[in-house]
């Protein structure tokens, strides 16, 4: 490993379904200013800037050019990063590597998405392998549905458990002023009455399209200790890739189960001395595309035994007040500005470690936290954060 790196500034916009009042650079700038204010820094203290989004969603080929002033990149090194759904973590990873390598002492990482002006559908067409996927006539949603059915058959989980995940998410979102969907749900019955999209998945089982940005300021050890009285240390980051449309190959029925999560988690835990995940890690912010996948993600990340993810939900272990809180922020199911989403996971985990998460602060003290990113096609990036190294 290289030099120690800490997060010393965290900023995010209020995520909403529409932001017609700002253009992309102005929206970015809100998050950048918030991060600088949080770090009590000025932009002149930033040495390099990394930005990223799901680029084709807004139809702008090099958005980094457009926003060079507002992002702080003007006259500085840095780059635009594209890694589909994991982009928001990849920008942090790039900044982390640069600071860890000693190339710079401070770096700004920005993930963002402005869904309200783009053509997400046209862009998504090019996300799947176009040659193969175009003739397929089955969408990703159907695969999620089949995963959910298989999960129920194999483990004994029921639709009620998915509804419990949504209820938990909404409880957190309602306490998070930055979250997009704050529905004020009061019972699982409300969720179980929402319409089916693809049997057995319901409208309330899925995330919204959000607009917003999240910015993190990273610093080397000596700068972090000088500038910040509550740095959050990045203990480790790991990326694992996976291919698409490989049903059956990894003992995986649909070829969409994130094999990459298990590989990434096993490697990350091993090289950081984590042998009992729920003892050695205090909290997680995970990238869950739907409430069903929150339960399987617990299993992929070794939070519990295989087939037991739904039991953690049933026992309220992952609630804000629980022994192993997951997604106190409301998670992706409440807020999904895709390019910003993994950045938000890291930001929210860091806020929990600082004790600055306000009403959504976990009840137990959080010293170590895990943030995940999942993107097409099932790439995984994990970030391990600690209060002290």
């Amino acid at each position, binding site marked *: 490993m290289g030099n120690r790196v800490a997060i010393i500034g965290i900023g995010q916009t209020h995520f909403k379904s529409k932001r*017609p*009042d700002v253009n992309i650079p102005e929206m970015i700038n809100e998050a950048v200013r918030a991060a600088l204010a949080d770090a009590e820094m000025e932009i002149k203290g930033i040495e390099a800037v990394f930005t990223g989004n799901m680029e084709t969603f807004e*139809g702008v080929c090099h958005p980094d050019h457009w926003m060079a002033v507002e992002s702080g990149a003007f006259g500085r090194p840095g780059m635009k990063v594209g890694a589909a759904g994991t982009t928001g973590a990849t920008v942090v990873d790039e900044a982390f590597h640069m600071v860890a390598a000693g190339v710079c002492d401070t770096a700004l990482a920005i993930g963002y998405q402005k869904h309200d*002006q783009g*053509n997400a*559908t*046209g862009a*998504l*067409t*090019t*996300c*799947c392998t*176009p*040659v*193969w*996927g*175009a*003739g*397929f*006539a*089955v*969408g*990703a*949603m*159907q*695969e999620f*549905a*089949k995963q959910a*059915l*298989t999960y129920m058959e194999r483990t004994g989980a029921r639709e009620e458990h998915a509804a419990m995940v949504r209820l938990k998410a909404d409880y957190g979102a309602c306490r998070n002023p930055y979250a997009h969907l704050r529905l004020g749900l009061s019972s699982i019955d409300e969720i179980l009455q929402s*319409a*089916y*999209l*693809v*049997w*057995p998945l319901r409208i309330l089982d899925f995330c919204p399209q959000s607009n917003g940005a999240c910015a993190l300021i990273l610093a080397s050890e000596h700068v972090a200790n000088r500038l910040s009285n509550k740095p959050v240390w990045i203990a480790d980051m790991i990326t694992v890739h996976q*291919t698409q*449309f*490989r*049903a*059956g*190959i990894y003992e995986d*029925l*649909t*070829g969409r189960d994130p094999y990459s999560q298990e590989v990434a988690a096993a490697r990350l835990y091993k090289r950081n001395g984590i042998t009992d995940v729920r003892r050695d890690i205090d909290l997680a912010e995970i990238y869950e595309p739907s409430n069903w996948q929150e339960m399987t993600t617990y299993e992929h990340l070794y939070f519990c035994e295989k087939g037991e993810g739904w039991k953690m939900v049933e026992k309220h272990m992952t609630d804000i007040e629980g022994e192993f809180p997951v997604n106190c922020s409301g998670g992706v199911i409440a807020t999904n500005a895709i390019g910003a989403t993994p950045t938000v996971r890291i930001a929210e985990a860091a806020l929990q470690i600082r004790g600055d998460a306000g009403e959504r602060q976990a009840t137990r003290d959080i010293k170590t936290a895990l943030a995940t990113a999942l993107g097409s096609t099932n790439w995984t990036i994990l970030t391990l954060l600690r209060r002290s190294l």
Partner: protein
Amino acid sequence: MTDNAEELIHVEYTQPWRYRWSTGKYIGKAYAETKRNKRLMGNRCSKCQEIVWPPEPVCPRCKVPTGEKWVELGDTGTVLQYTYQVMPMWDPHVGRARAHPHPSANIRMDSGCHIMHRLEETDPEKLKKVKRVKAVWKEEGRQGGMDDILYFRAIDG
């Protein structure tokens, strides 16, 4: 900054572009087989001997060149899991919302290969009994690819 408060102006732009993606040597071969011969063809890994589907030059498991051992997947298989659409939704593969009247299924072909396709049966109750299935090919208008199969039809045994 208050001048435009009453009217938020947007710039509109519609992209008229079309794309033509090359299918490549391996998927191109598979597509030619569906189009001309109504056959699903994968290639067998020279190391692990598993069928790679869709066919590719490198085995994702062994990371070795797969070679040119082509093998038929066959037309019959067993349904492992299925679902059906209740509302029209965005299909990321075609970039527009559409309803799929035919249920989506994961099928293990008798050759051992897993594929994703549709089922002919649309009645949710009858679907529960659909296990063994056989591909129903388009007789006209095959263009290469999985859509050359209309759907999978329930068969006995």
